[in-house]
């Protein structure tokens, strides 16, 4: 029981999206287990540059295989219509939107931050509206429904998450020195904590010990580390068909 999960996520990182959705889906149970969750916007480009790592999909056979793996990861979460928005190298230049997310986290309540992050992931991977320039980001931020949820149909009410003034405020934030500095500090923090990719997951247990986890497929190790109760993945015997 207890502890803290810090996740460094970038919208251009597919498995960051998967991790984000996994966290939304286990939010209640983590809360019941008294585990705090803190999501940090980060730059996967910055983490790669700082660690000397290169995206795995630059190996052609891995890129080909990723079509299968990514489809299955999304399927396991009930996430639909998720595909690569064109040239991922180009789309990976997420300085502007990740500065925006950094600003939103500092200036708005937690649920607004989460809703905005969800929509930015959705815009990138499903709408294929890559918000990497100020004009496109402005459009995307203005569109976000007030109660946007990834696994729910679009709400009937036209209420938006941000007013036009708030959108302008966020766009201004993307060029503010302290916001640029804060995002750079997060990249440095992730690198200092051993990151070479995203999602980078830094977990601290109830006694204050911390360990790194990488990827959206190591949650059982996170649960072990935090001493949380969980049901292991298990093959079952063939279920008898109901007559």
């Amino acid at each position: 029981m207890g502890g803290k999960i810090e996740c460094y996520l970038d919208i251009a990182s597919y498995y960051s999206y998967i991790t984000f959705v996994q966290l939304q889906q286990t939010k209640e149970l983590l809360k019941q287990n008294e585990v705090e969750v803190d999501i940090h916007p980060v730059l996967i480009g910055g983490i790669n540059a700082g660690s000397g790592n290169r995206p795995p999909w630059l190996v052609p056979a891995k890129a080909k295989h990723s079509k299968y793996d990514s489809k299955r990861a999304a399927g396991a979460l009930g996430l639909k219509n998720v595909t690569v928005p064109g040239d991922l190298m180009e789309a990976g230049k997420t300085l502007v939107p990740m500065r925006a997310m950094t600003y939103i986290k500092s200036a708005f309540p937690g649920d607004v931050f989460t809703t905005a992050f969800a929509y930015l992931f959705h815009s990138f991977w499903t709408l294929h509206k890559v918000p990497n320039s100020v004009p496109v980001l402005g459009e995307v931020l203005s569109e976000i429904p007030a109660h946007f949820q990834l696994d729910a149909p679009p709400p009937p009410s036209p209420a938006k998450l941000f007013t036009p003034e708030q959108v302008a405020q966020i766009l201004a934030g993307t060029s503010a020195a302290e916001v640029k500095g804060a995002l750079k500090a997060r990249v440095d923090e992730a690198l200092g904590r051993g990151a070479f990719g995203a999602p980078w997951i830094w977990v601290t247990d109830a006694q204050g010990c911390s360990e790194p986890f990488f990827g959206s497929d190591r949650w059982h190790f996170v649960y072990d580390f935090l001493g949380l109760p969980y049901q292991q993945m298990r093959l079952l015997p063939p279920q008898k068909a109901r007559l």
Partner: protein
Amino acid sequence: MGGHIDFYTDLNSIYGYLGFIHVLEHLEALRSYGVGVDFHPVYLPDLQQRSGNRVIWTVKARQHWLENYELPRSKRDFGVPEANPPDSDLNNLFRVGQTQLPLRALLAVRKLHSVRVYNSVWHWLYRSFWTPPQQCIKDEAPLREALQDMPLDFSSGVHDNESRQFSSGEVDGIISLAKEQKTKEQLRKNTDEALRQGAFGAPWMMVRNSAGVVEPFFGSDRFAQMYEFLGLSYSPLKLLPPPKPKPTPSHL
């Protein structure tokens, strides 16, 4: 119901070993669904090089995470916490990992003995390579010794410590067939086949479901997705609520 798993792996791959352990432990359970399994040796350094997945540079942070966190956790998870290659220096894995001879020996066993024995030899050679005291079975003398020492019915888990799987004549037969040109070619053909299917590492699995659809799976951490694809019943990883505290007895 029904389906098939073609499992491609090399002895020098730790994730190949972990994936192999999982599939071996589930052979019977898979059979109960009509899912058959075949293990195929491939030469991993060749596979990596030719698929462009040859790591010629090392990312220090990745190495650190692998050695200090990911591998210890994974090895514990699969029940082989002490697994290490012969000569623990990961930088020497290149040298001790030149496993062509034992892979060819496996092909020879497949030809000369039953599938059950063949699967057991995979298990035995994996153990010999990875668990203390690690044997450098890429070399002929340690490989002969390992085959000679292999207990009868090794995979059954019941050993009388006396009976051996192979006579010395049978070990000679395996080693001599392993060295023949046709066996060398078979290993190369296996590696070619895996590459053709899109493999870039081990373990690589080509899985066919009951509808006849074939899809690739990679790694020792995708079995839930494989069971999903095969239409098998499984319970997924699930976080649970904290246990309820016991109610204190009320006093009248």
